[in-house]
Structure formats: structure tokens, C-alpha cells
């Protein structure tokens, strides 16, 4: 459960990070709105993930936090790519 919660936090944080990048915004045809919220997500959610992971024993907590960064990033990247493909197909 902790792994899943940390994964969701990292996934959303990295999704926010991706949506803040001009190249990705252009690919997704996204406007300039909601940057503040995305910045908060990018900064805050990794800390939430850390707090959640810290409930585990020490070496495990760090490994879970770092591991969920990688997997969460892959999921977020995959989601952004899927949306980009969909938007491209729809254009």
C-alpha cells in the first residue's frame, strides 16, 4: 500500500513536471494555464511520497522512494506519450 501511495505521488509529481515543459505542452496542445498548481504538485508530491515511504524501515524507505520515482516517471511519461499520440491522431 505504501509502495502504491508513493508511486501515485511520484507519478502525479512527474506528470506535473512534464506538463510544465514547453516542448511537451506544444506536443499536447496545452495552453499556459494552471502553472502554479503544477509547480506545487511538482514540489510537494515528492515530499509527500517521502513522508509516506518513511513509514517503512530505513533502507527500505529510501529504496521504495527512489524506486517509485523511476516507475512513477515511466508511467507519467507513458501517459503523456499516449495523450500526445491521441491528440496527434485527432488533429
Amino acid at each position: 500500500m505504501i509502495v502504491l501511495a508513493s508511486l501515485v505521488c511520484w507519478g502525479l509529481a512527474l506528470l506535473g513536471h512534464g506538463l510544465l515543459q514547453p516542448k511537451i505542452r506544444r506536443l499536447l496542445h496545452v495552453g499556459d494555464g494552471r502553472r502554479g498548481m503544477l509547480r506545487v504538485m511538482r514540489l510537494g508530491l515528492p515530499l509527500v511520497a517521502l513522508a509516506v515511504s518513511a513509514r517503512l524501515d530505513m533502507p527500505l524507505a529510501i529504496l521504495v522512494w527512489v524506486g517509485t520515482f523511476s516507475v512513477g516517471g515511466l508511467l507519467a511519461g507513458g501517459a503523456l506519450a499516449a495523450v500526445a499520440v491521441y491528440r496527434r491522431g485527432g488533429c
Partner: protein
Amino acid sequence: MRDVLRTRMGWLHAWVGFVGGLVLVVAFTGGTLALFDTEITRWMQPELAALPAAAMTGQALDHAGAQVWALREKGQIVFLNLPSARDPVLRILHYDGHAFVGPVLDPRDGVEVKSRATEGGQLFFDLHQSLYRGPVWGNLMTEAAGIGLIVAVISGVIIHWRNLVPDLLLFRPFAAPGRAWLDAHIMAGVLLLPFVTMMAYTGAVIHAPRLFPMIGAGHAAKAASRAGGGERRDGGAYAPLAPIFAQAEEIFGRGRIGFVMFGSGTVSFYRADAADFAMTRDHADFSAVDGKLVGVTRVGHGMRRLDGAMRGLHFIRWGTPGLRWLYFVGGVVGSMMMSAGLVLFLMKHRRGQGGGVMLGLAETLALAVTLGLPLAALGFLWGNRLLPADLAHRAELETRIFFLLWLGALVHAALRCFRGAVRHGWREQACGIAVLGCALPFLDIVSRSGTGVRLHWDLYLGVDACALGFGLLALWGQRMMVRAR
């Protein structure tokens, strides 16, 4: 081409990455599967599915101990692996040069359970750590490849430094093939940077004595010093193991004993690797005659635990299932990232030229390690279920099937690549993976029907679902190749 830092690092990354990558894809794929080596071994011994989960009894331990002493008196070097959450049976194991194999005992009474002989998941462990080439040259190759991986990581970070953070999630599958592969390689590489670096570093530290044989004695010396077995003790009965086991549990804690080694006149109870983050192999030695405690060996705190911590980080035998799955996903994506690197290298060198022996060879090897290895791994599982359970030398035959399939994939790759039909080669091997992977769950259900389909279903579901997942991925990949023509 200008001789500047970025182009230099590009050269270093490409060539070290490609040459080392051919070994690293094998090591990474093998290591990823070896994360679940115990579970794969159990999957490959379906007779154990009929065995209900039960705690080990003192009677079983005493019976197992008597069998081990009898084998030792015949000159065999064996030890006793105790039941654990991952493998709830007793095993009398010996090292066959590549894997720890041996009979399985019922944890309730210590009576041998008839199960097929197999190297099981340990084949992948040996492939990971030494490419099945033994502890000297094999370890040396994987060690050098591990150092090469760190070199490739550092040079890759330098090349990509400016865009490391902004392009972290940039993946454009609809872009030109070269760009799409590069995006995938970079995205997976950067996201897995902590995992890949940690695994390469800890793996390289674990086998550092291979690279610096003049400094450390290495595993061979350790094994030799530990072995000392097989000799006959003069007369007298041995103390039963159950009371000694209780003493050992008082020292290390309940459920924290992993295996028992038998020396000349002593019995050593080793703390389980799963008991602690640092894999230190603490043990308590007892007299084999009267069961009295002879001594306790514990690795202290501080720097002395560093080696154990490196092993603990790399092998994660102490980890929870969730962490093991995280490592597994990291390993799978890491292997794909390296494979994408191999493909990128080939794409770059394929442009503007019609072929050549070196390019054909490079493409053959890349295809054989990228798709040929998973194909052979699935074939290994198929061979396990299709070969008769009581066949003589069946463990060797299974291993031969694995290597013959891999050799077949290499020959097939060579035939396709040297005849200019590279894409066909990739598609055909992907099709092979798709067929073997997607059909494996059916084979499992059919070949396990007489044993007990409902018991330990999670283990079988895990292996079957992974095989099916890889099969579907390969099917999707080959369809993409058809569309991209």
C-alpha cells in the same frame, strides 16, 4: 566531426555502451529473472504444488540432518536449506558448478518429495553473475561490463546534461524511428539512473576481487575455506538438529535461520539472508556430537558491514515483495533501455551503407541478446514441463535446451542479418516470444493438472502472467514493425 567534449563523450558512450551492452543486456535480463529465482524454481517443480503449506517440525529437521550426515559420509559436500516464506520446503543442496541443486524434503516429516531435477531460476542467477562461464572468466566479464556501464552512464549524463531535467518525460513515439528510439532510451535511462547506477556499482563492488585478484582472495578462496566437507568422522552418532536449531533461534531470533552447514565435527546455523539488510552470513557453530555451542560469528557494525550492505542492496533477499517487484520493473525497463541503445547504435551505423561483415555481426549479436535470450528463457520453461519428470540427467537437458535455443536464435539472426533481412529477423524472433509467452499459461495449467492447481496459485499466476505479458509485448512489437514498413 569536431574533437570536442560532447563528441568524445558520444564516442565513448556509443562504443562502450554497444560492446559492453551486449554483455549487459544478458546480465540485466538474467539478473531481473533471478530476482524471482526461488519462485521460478518452484514453478519448475510443479510436483511441489501438491504440498500444503506447513511449518517445519523438529522431526523433519532431525530426519533431514541424518540424511545430510549420511551423504557427507559418502563424501558429498551438501548443506541443508531451511524453509522460508519464499520456499516452504527443506532442501539438501550441493553446488553443481552453476547452481545449488538437490532433493526436496517435506517440512512436516523430512521425507523426500519426488520432484523433477532442475537448475530452475538459478540458471538465470548464474547467467547474470558469470554468463554461465564460471567464477573466473565469467565474473571478470560481467565485472568489466559493470564498470563499462558506469562509464556509459557518466558519459551519457555529460552528453545529455543540458536537457536532463526538461526532457525527463519527453517521448515521441510518432517521431522518426531514430528519434523515437532515442527518446525512449533517454527517458528510461534518466528515470532509471539511480537504479542502474546502484546495481552496476554494487555488482561491481561485489565482484571487485575478480578485477583486482592481486588484492582480494575472492569467492573461490572463501568457498574453499568453507568447504572442508565430505570427510568421514570416526564412529559415534550425531546430535539431533532440532534442539540445536532452537539454540540458534535464541541467538539470531525466531524464523531467522536460513541454512545449515555441516563441517568436520561441527554444525553451523547461518542467519537467513532475508533476516537483515546487510547480507553478512552471521552464524553460530555447534558441536556435531553433543550440540553444545562452540562459537558465534557476527559481523560487527561500521565498515565491516559495508560488504554485506552492498550485497544486501544488490540481491535484496531481505526485501518485501513490493520492493522485489520494483526491482523487477527496473530490471525489465533497464534491459529494454540497453536494448534500445544497441538498436540506436545499429541505426546510426546502418545509415548510408549497404552492410558489411562487421555491421552484420553487430546486428546478429544485438538481435541474439535482445530477443534471442528471452526466447531461450521461455523455451527453458517449456522444456521443463515437456521433458518427462523422471528422465535421467534432466537438469542438464533443460539447460541444454536453453542454450540450444539461444544458439538457434543466434544462427537465425545471422542468417537474416547477413542476407539483408534484419527486420524479418526481429519480427520472427518477436513472433517466437509471442507464441511461447502467450501459450505458457495454458501449458502450465495442462501440465500441472494432476498436482493441485489451487495450492500456491499466486506463484504460478506470477510466472504465467509475466510470460503472457512478455508474449503480448512481443506481439505488439512485431505488429509495430509490420506497420512501420
